[in-house]
């Protein structure tokens, strides 16, 4: 007997219920942060979950100004833009070199870079810290910008190479016959075509850089350069009793990427799929 036809309905609804609870649990952190951030400290002491009895934006103000979340936010924006732009730019030129240009050693260099894709970066924290001290880069945006770019580069390069290779070779060939220079082939023909691939990488890399914590903790000690994730960690100590402000700070940390996910979901999923189906 075909069990699809007689699948017991209670089981089916139990599965739907379980999956719904799981889905709701994914939204709970956001809801929890929102309801807490609108409370006064007194209100929080009385009750920690549910509709707040007071509705005040004070916690956001305390987080943004007194806890320097405003500064951290700007730092996170600078680091994210810097690291993503650098990594994607280098991945594009390298991808072009491997996929389109003909030169000796192309294969070797390609596989050499690719082979570092799976290394867990945290295991490298000791020498990376020492190297950054030696280069006098600790407490600069540049330290994390360079590091994040490097850590993402093997994957980015892989994706750009795959993309450029999928472009019909006739395009570059025709340009060559017309006497176009290497830079022209890259800048006027291939780069404009690769906007979707670049968008995919930008979203995917931004999510990593914005949320990265350990290297930011290791390399950014000065309040003027700290990013949001380290800032939230700081906030815990600074605002030990001011939970509404702490949660407002965490909400400010989380919202930009939630919005990016809402708007660019397609690109994110594409990047993950490309990474998984290689």
């Amino acid at each position, binding site marked *: 007997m075909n069990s699809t036809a007689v699948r017991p309905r209670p089981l089916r609804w139990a599965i739907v219920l379980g999956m719904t609870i799981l889905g709701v649990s994914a939204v709970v952190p956001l809801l929890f942060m929102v309801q807490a951030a609108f409370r006064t400290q007194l209100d929080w002491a009385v009750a920690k979950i549910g509709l707040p009895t007071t509705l005040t934006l004070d916690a956001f103000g305390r987080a943004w100004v007194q806890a320097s979340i405003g500064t951290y936010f700007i730092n996170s924006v600078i680091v994210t833009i810097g690291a993503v732009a650098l990594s994607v730019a280098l991945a594009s030129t390298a991808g072009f070199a491997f996929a389109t240009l003909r030169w000796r050693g192309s294969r070797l260099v390609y596989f050499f870079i690719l082979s570092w894709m799976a290394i867990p970066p945290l295991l*490298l924290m000791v020498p990376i810290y020492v190297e950054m001290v030696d280069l006098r880069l600790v407490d600069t945006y540049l330290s994390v910008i360079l590091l994040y770019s490097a850590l993402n580069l093997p994957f980015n390069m892989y994706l750009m190479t795959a993309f450029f290779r999928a472009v019909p070779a006739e395009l570059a060939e025709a340009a060559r016959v017309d006497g176009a220079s290497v830079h022209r082939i890259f800048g006027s023909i291939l780069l404009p075509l690769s906007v979707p691939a670049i968008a995919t990488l930008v979203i995917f890399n931004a999510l990593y850089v914005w949320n990265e914590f350990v290297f930011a903790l290791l390399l950014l000690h000065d309040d003027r350069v700290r990013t949001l994730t380290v800032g939230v960690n700081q906030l815990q100590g600074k605002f030990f009793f001011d939970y509404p402000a702490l949660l407002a700070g965490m909400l400010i940390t989380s919202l930009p990427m*939630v919005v990016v996910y809402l708007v660019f979901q397609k690109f994110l999923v594409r990047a993950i799929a490309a990474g998984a189906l290689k």
Partner: protein
Amino acid sequence: MTGAGGAPAGTRRRGHNPLGSEAKWGLMYALPALVVVVVFVVYPFASIVVHAFTRWNGFSDPTFIGLRNFEFLLRDNTFWAAFRNNVFFALSVPFQVAVPLLLAFLIQQRIPGWRFYRWTYFLPAIYSTIVLGVLTRLILQVDGPFNELLNGAGLGGLAREWLGDSSTALPAILIVFIWANFGYNVVIFLAGMSGIDPQLPEAARIDGANQRQVLRHVYIPGLRRVMEIVLVTSTINAFAYMFTYVFTITNGGPGFSTYVVEFDIYNTAFTAQRLGYACAMGLGLTLVILVLGFFQIRALTGGRE
């Protein structure tokens, strides 16, 4: 974007008389990426390999001490306690492969509410790990919302200091870890499923296969590569991406009971200033991960063809 298995086109048409400028510019275009990877990934890795055999405090020059770090490592109780916790987290990996696979299958079958699941399940991967960790600690505090909920529901007897005892703190970290990663794996499986020819499950159903048989005989064989990737990445996560959870939720405590190896490396290097020893630990863990990854891939692909 997925058909990238082969080698680059570099040497494909050797007889074509490659333009002299291409031979020169090829390396120039690849060089910046190569330099950045070498300086910030390859060099640190080489540094770990070299310094694992030294005594080094980060200020004075390292001294070569042969295998002594590794001899010490074998007898280091803190390290092995931390490693045991990593193994504990890694034991959840089969679950982390099977459940997302099932969830992805149900979403693929358009179970009621599938759009909602597909949208929400990825959210945990969007939140920063530090936000999830701080939230967990805050929610599980003695006077935190979770105990408040229990009291409100008349279950006050169950309320306790969840993070004050390793028998509840470790499972708490595990649950957050699993929850934070499951949606990512669902998305990977969904992507893999969309790559399977829809005529295959259709044909199986016409032949009278039920849902379970379709999953088992059509989807699972078709997703072998994807399962391999999820299995290996989930294992690597359990060994090398636990730091932030532990740092924020328990800070390793109570005592050393929720240490993981990364946390031990961090403290050994930056609190105890024993950098050479920390490098030895890093090298050891890298080897463990490589070996595990190798055997997992063997286990999944071996004996199939």
